[in-house]
C-alpha cells in the first residue's frame, strides 16, 4: 500500500473523506449485464487452436466470398437489429458524443437501409418531409458533389431523438445531410470541440472514424451534419459550400 505513514492526521482525514466520496459511486446494474452480454457475444469469436485455424480461415474466406457476393447483389447487408445496434455503438463511440448524434442516424438510416433503384423526383422527395423542411432539398442538391442523387428524404426518430435526413448516393458512395433538433444545452462549443474552419462566420467542425467523415455546424436550434464516405477534404468542401445557404434557411425557419 502507498505511503500512509508519510501523511499527517489532517491529510489522512482528507484522504478518508476523498475515499468515501469517490467510493459512493456504484456501477449501474445494467452495465454489469451489458458487459457480460458483450463478453458472451465475443466468446464465440475467440480464436481457434492453431490446428483448426487454416480450416477456419478457409471457411471464413468462403463465407466472405459467397456472402459478400450475395450482399453485393442485394445492395446492402442484412444484419439483425441487434448486430446493427452493436455496430453503430462500436463505431460511434469513437467520436465525441455530439458528433455521434449525426453519425448514428447516418449509419442507421443510410448504411443499413435499402435504397430505391431510381432517385425520386423533387416533388416526391419533398412530399416525404413536413412543409418547413422541404426547402432544404434544393439547397442540398445544389451543393453536393456532382453525381450525387437525393435517394431518400424522411423524418425519423432514433434513440428518442427526431431527425430530418436526406440520404444521397453516387454509385457505391453514400452521403447524408442530417438535421437534429438540439436538446437542452447542446452545442459544439460546450463540448470544447475546435472548429476545423469558419465559413461566412459559421464555425465548422470535423471528425472521422473508419470510413465515415463527419462535418457539422449548428444553428440556434439545430445540429447539422454532413456525413459521407468521401475523403475528409471533399466532405469538408461539401459542408463549406452548403453551410451559408443552409444556415440562412434554418435562421428563417427558427424565427
Amino acid at each position, binding site marked *: *500500500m*502507498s*505511503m500512509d505513514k508519510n501523511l499527517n492526521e*489532517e*491529510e489522512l*482525514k*482528507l*484522504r478518508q*473523506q*476523498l*475515499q*468515501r*466520496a*469517490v*467510493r*459512493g*459511486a*456504484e*456501477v*449501474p446494474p445494467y*452495465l*454489469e449485464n*451489458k*458487459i*457480460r452480454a*458483450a*463478453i458472451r457475444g*465475443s*466468446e464465440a469469436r*475467440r480464436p481457434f487452436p492453431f490446428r483448426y485455424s487454416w480450416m477456419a480461415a478457409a471457411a471464413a474466406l468462403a463465407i466472405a466470398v459467397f456472402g459478400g457476393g450475395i450482399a453485393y447483389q442485394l445492395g446492402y447487408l442484412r444484419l439483425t437489429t441487434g448486430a446493427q445496434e452493436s455496430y453503430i455503438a462500436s463505431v460511434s*463511440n*469513437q*467520436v*465525441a*458524443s455530439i458528433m455521434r448524434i449525426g453519425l448514428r442516424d447516418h449509419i442507421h438510416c443510410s448504411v443499413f437501409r435499402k435504397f430505391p433503384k431510381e432517385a425520386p423526383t423533387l416533388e416526391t422527395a419533398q412530399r416525404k418531409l413536413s412543409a418547413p423542411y422541404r426547402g432544404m432539398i434544393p439547397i442540398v442538391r445544389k451543393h453536393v458533389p456532382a453525381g450525387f442523387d437525393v435517394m431518400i428524404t424522411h423524418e425519423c426518430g432514433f434513440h428518442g431523438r427526431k431527425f430530418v435526413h436526406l440520404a444521397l448516393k453516387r454509385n457505391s458512395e453514400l452521403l447524408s445531410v442530417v438535421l437534429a433538433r438540439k436538446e437542452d444545452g447542446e452545442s459544439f462549443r460546450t463540448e*470544447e*470541440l*475546435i472548429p476545423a474552419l469558419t465559413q461566412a462566420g459559421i464555425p465548422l467542425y470535423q*471528425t472521422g472514424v473508419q470510413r465515415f467523415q463527419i462535418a457539422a455546424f449548428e444553428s440556434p436550434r439545430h445540429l447539422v451534419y454532413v456525413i459521407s464516405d468521401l475523403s475528409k477534404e471533399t466532405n469538408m468542401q461539401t459542408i463549406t459550400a452548403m453551410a451559408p445557404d443552409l444556415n440562412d434557411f434554418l435562421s428563417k425557419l427558427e424565427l
Partner: protein
Amino acid sequence: MTEGAPAAHRFEMEAMPHLNDIYRTATRILGERARAEDVVQEVYLQAWKSFDRFESGTNCRAWLFKILFHCVNHHRRKWFRFPLLKENEEFLEANLAYSPPAPDHLTDEEILAALDKLPADFRSVVLLVDVEEFAYKEAADILQIPIGTVMSRLSRGRRLLREQLAEVARSYGIGRTAEEGRGV
C-alpha cells in the same frame, strides 16, 4: 482459480469483482457517466480478448486499471482538448507556494467537485494512490510514467485539492486566503 478452469469462469472470478473500482475511476476521470460506461465496457472487452495472456494469480485489478488508462488516453485525445501538463505545472508553481489546510466540514459533493477541478494527470494519480490505494510503483506501471513523476504529481495534486477545498471554505467565510498564508 486454476489455469485449467474455463476462461469465462476465471474471468468472472478474477476480473468482474473489480468492475465497481474501474467504473468509479472512469467516472471521475472522464467526468461523464455515459462516456465512463462506454469506456468501462471497452476495458472489459479488451481484458476478455487478451485474458489468455493474463497470468492467473497476478494482480488482475492493476492489470484492469492499466487497460482503463490505456483506453482513456486513447479516447481523450479525440474527445477533449486537455491543457498541456507543462501549463498545469507552471500554474501550480505560481499558485501553490502555500498549502492550505482542508476545511473540517465537507460534503461528498464538495469533495468531488474539487477533485474534478484537478488537471486530469494529477487527478489520475490522486485517484490511483489515495482512493484506490495502489503503491507508487503500481501507479507508475498503470500510468506508464516514472515513479518520480507519480510522487511529484501526487504531491501537487493533493496540494491543489486542498487549495480547491479551501476555496469552498472561503466561500463560507471560513479560513484565511492563500495570500495571507504566504504572508503577502
